[in-house]
């Protein structure tokens, strides 16, 4: 197995774990955690591809990962703001209970 394949497998595993977390947990915050894990797995892919690319000095993969980290930070802030607003509205963060579109 090449090193790149190892990194890609780990990334795939982390992505799957994140997806499982996002799809199976009740708590909205933990769903968000799952999404963050998926984003991170994608970043690992980007960096691994950059590292083993024929022209790493072009920096594209690395830049993509850095921007992705910045976007993820914004996503986390907005997502958690939404969760808090949701909690204030419905007094729960349980996604199985929050199933009505009408307030």
């Amino acid at each position, binding site marked *: 197995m090449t090193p790149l394949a190892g990194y890609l497998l780990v990334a795939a595993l982390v992505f799957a*774990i994140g997806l499982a*977390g996002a*799809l199976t947990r009740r708590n909205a915050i933990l769903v968000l955690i799952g999404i963050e894990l998926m984003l991170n797995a994608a970043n690992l892919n980007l*960096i691994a591809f950059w*590292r083993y690319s024929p022209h790493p000095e072009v920096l594209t993969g690395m830049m993509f990962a850095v921007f992705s980290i910045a976007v993820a930070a914004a996503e986390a802030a907005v997502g958690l703001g939404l969760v808090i607003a949701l909690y204030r509205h419905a007094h729960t963060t349980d996604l*199985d209970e929050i199933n009505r579109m009408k307030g």
Partner: protein
Amino acid sequence: MNIVFWILAVITVLSGLAAVTLKNTVHCALAVTGAFAGLALLFLQLDAQFAGFAQILVYIGAVAILVVFAILLTRGSDTPAQGVFSRTWFAGLLIAAAVFTVLGWAVMNSAAALPHENAVPTVTVQQIGQALMGRYVLPLEIVALLLTAAMLGAVIVAMHEKGEPK
């Protein structure tokens, strides 16, 4: 494929697993911090210093803290009575397993075509800075705009509305 990679991979995957399976929400948040740290170390292992440190700074320093704050603000640390997994957990698990199968199959099938070990790229922070200010200046500005918008959005979403009881 050295031993350090395998240790880091195991740490990352195990903390990731803990993050999605543990009962206590705060434990989940701490476990996901471990996964973030493991991923950051994997970045460093891939000679991406800047990305690795940015990952630690943003994820452990900010996102993990935001998550635990949100957990405390929503009383998330009390374990719910009906269990921690949603009603459709089986379908979710199935989808995740399917996704992993497909991804793993793709990686293993193309493993021969993947490039092998190549020279360690020497990328200084200066180069990254120049790239950010040169070739990638437009994405940088857009990210700045996005961050500002996200900050304002988060503040407005989470702010108390007027007249609403606290």
